[in-house]
């Protein structure tokens, strides 16, 4: 028993020590800066709470994250459905199509979107050629740009859990539903949809939390009109050299994420029946 414990500890030690020294300690040091403002221990948090800019950015971050989650869910659902049904070559092609973007640097993908969405880029030219609009549409440096870029980057994180949930559904359940007299819509609504909800909940949690902490894509595609929390935190450090404010904003973001995670796990537990298989 004791020998085993030492063995486990010895195996864990290298990773634990590395994490502690290069990650946990610097993080604690950084976050503790929030309480070192010359105006007082909690002055930074007071300043954040009183700042209309900060409040707007916070609200914007949550709205963008929620919209991104909704759009990826709507796009990923039919895609995951197809993935779960096709076999052979089509499956290989589709799954690589889903995974391929993950292998390309996020920076490359974001700059690619800048080229596509710019004032005289291919997207605007196509819109004008089709007569949808006479003047180029503002697609970049606003919400539209941020949403397009983030949805593109985060889509696989929604597709994969949904696909997993759909693959786990026994096709005989749909036959059973059919044989019991239920129509297609009813079988979908009462059997298929509820059984995919665990995947949807998992994917949505992923996408929402990743969205809240997203930096590169909103910073490059959002410009000055769609600022997200991480962009603000970086601005505190690089433009204002105000480390205590950056730390306070980070703590606020961390707290929001923690609360959401707790709520999510609580929601998942409430519906445990859907997850057991």
């Amino acid at each position, binding site marked *: 028993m004791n020998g085993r414990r030492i063995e486990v500890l010895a195996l864990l030690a290298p990773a634990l020590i590395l994490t502690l020294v290069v990650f946990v300690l610097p993080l604690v040091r950084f976050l503790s800066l929030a309480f070192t403002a010359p105006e007082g221990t909690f002055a930074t948090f007071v300043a954040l709470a009183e700042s209309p800019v900060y409040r707007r950015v916070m609200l914007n971050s949550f709205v963008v994250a929620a919209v991104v989650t909704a759009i990826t869910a709507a796009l990923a659902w039919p895609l995951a459905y197809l993935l779960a049904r096709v076999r052979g070559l089509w499956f290989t092609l589709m799954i690589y199509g889903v995974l391929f973007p993950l292998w390309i640097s996020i920076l490359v993908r974001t700059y690619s979107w800048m080229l596509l969405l710019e004032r005289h880029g291919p997207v605007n030219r196509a819109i004008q050629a089709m007569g949808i609009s006479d003047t180029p549409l503002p697609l970049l440096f606003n919400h539209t740009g941020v949403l397009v870029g983030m949805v593109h980057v985060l889509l696989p994180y929604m597709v994969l859990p949904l696909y997993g949930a759909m693959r786990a559904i026994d096709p*005989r359940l749909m036959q059973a539903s059919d044989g019991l*007299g239920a129509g297609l819509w009813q079988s979908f609504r009462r059997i298929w949809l509820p059984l995919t909800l665990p995947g949807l909940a998992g994917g949505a949690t992923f996408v929402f939390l990743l969205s809240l902490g997203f930096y590169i894509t909103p910073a490059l595609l959002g410009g000055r009109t769609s600022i997200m929390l991480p962009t603000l935190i970086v601005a505190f450090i690089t433009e204002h050299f105000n480390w205590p404010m950056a730390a306070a904003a980070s703590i606020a973001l961390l707290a929001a994420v923690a609360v959401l995670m707790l709520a999510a796990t609580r929601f998942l537990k409430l519906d445990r029946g859907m997850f057991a298989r």
Partner: protein
Amino acid sequence: MIETTGLALGLRGLTKRYGAVTALEPTDLDIGAGEFLTLLGPSGSGKTTLLNLIAGYTDPSGGTIRIGDRDVTRTPARHRNIGMVFQSYALFPHMTVAQNLAYGLEARRVPKPEIARRVEAALALVQLEGYGTRGVQQMSGGQQQRVAVARALVIEPDVLLMDEPLGALDRQLRRQVQVELRRLHLKHGRTTIYVTHDQEEALVLSDRIAVMGKGRIQQLGTAAELYARPANSFIAGFIGESNLPEAKVTEVTGGMASAEVPALGLTVRAPVMPGVAPGAPARLMLRPEHLRILPDAGEGIEARIAEVIYLGELTQFGLETAGGAFLVARGMEGRGLRQGDIVRLGWSPEEVLLVPDTGP
């Protein structure tokens, strides 16, 4: 056998092909109302294809399906009013037992109070009173099996289909559930088609058995008919056990034939099944319980006892003949015999049968 009051299900020329492969040869079958019919056969024999065609999960390549006086050949599964029990049960995992049972009734827009009443009655029928609020995944395998049966029965189906419903249970439980299913059928009296590869299950449960092989019904009859007069060597070996030495038929007259049986080193006269003819490959069906060890020397054929297996009330002997055949005999006699003893074997001519050889 249960009194039948008319035709519940009629198949005419029902066929299923997948490209060049024929899963089900053109098949005719009539099933009486209230009858319990088993489709018995090894995997790949076409029994599951036939079941899926009746259920409406597979479209036929040809032929017709009638339920009562309705032609349902082109009717989707949800309008056939058929109850299906799947091998995996296919219970809805996110619902309680009662919700599973109510599902088919809700699809039929049955009023709520009646649903509650019928769900209760169905649970009582399978002896699961009080389990309605349980999640199906909290139930044991045997209980889930009963829930699946109750869910299929609660919709009052015209035909109840069961696809190897005991396949997922252990041997001990399977015996018990067989007897329960038989009692249950006597209670609900619904026309039932049961698919299995287990001949013991088929014998215990069925009014009639359709033995399937190579995509067709090889023989249809009661258990006793199949056992006493199997249509060919495949069925003789599949229903019960049998010694099946090869036989060369020399002449057939009036339902009897003479045949040389090299393994026994003699010529026998025995009743024949249709299809047995001079020159056509045939086998002699010699059931272990009909093969007797004779008290007197001089009669029968000589054999050496190769093994003795004590089975309690019976003893089973493995016997080697001079012709090189290995025969199995089973009976209450021969208590004192040992391995290596030389004995003589005999049988009553009316208990053996010459059947067409369908190959191994």
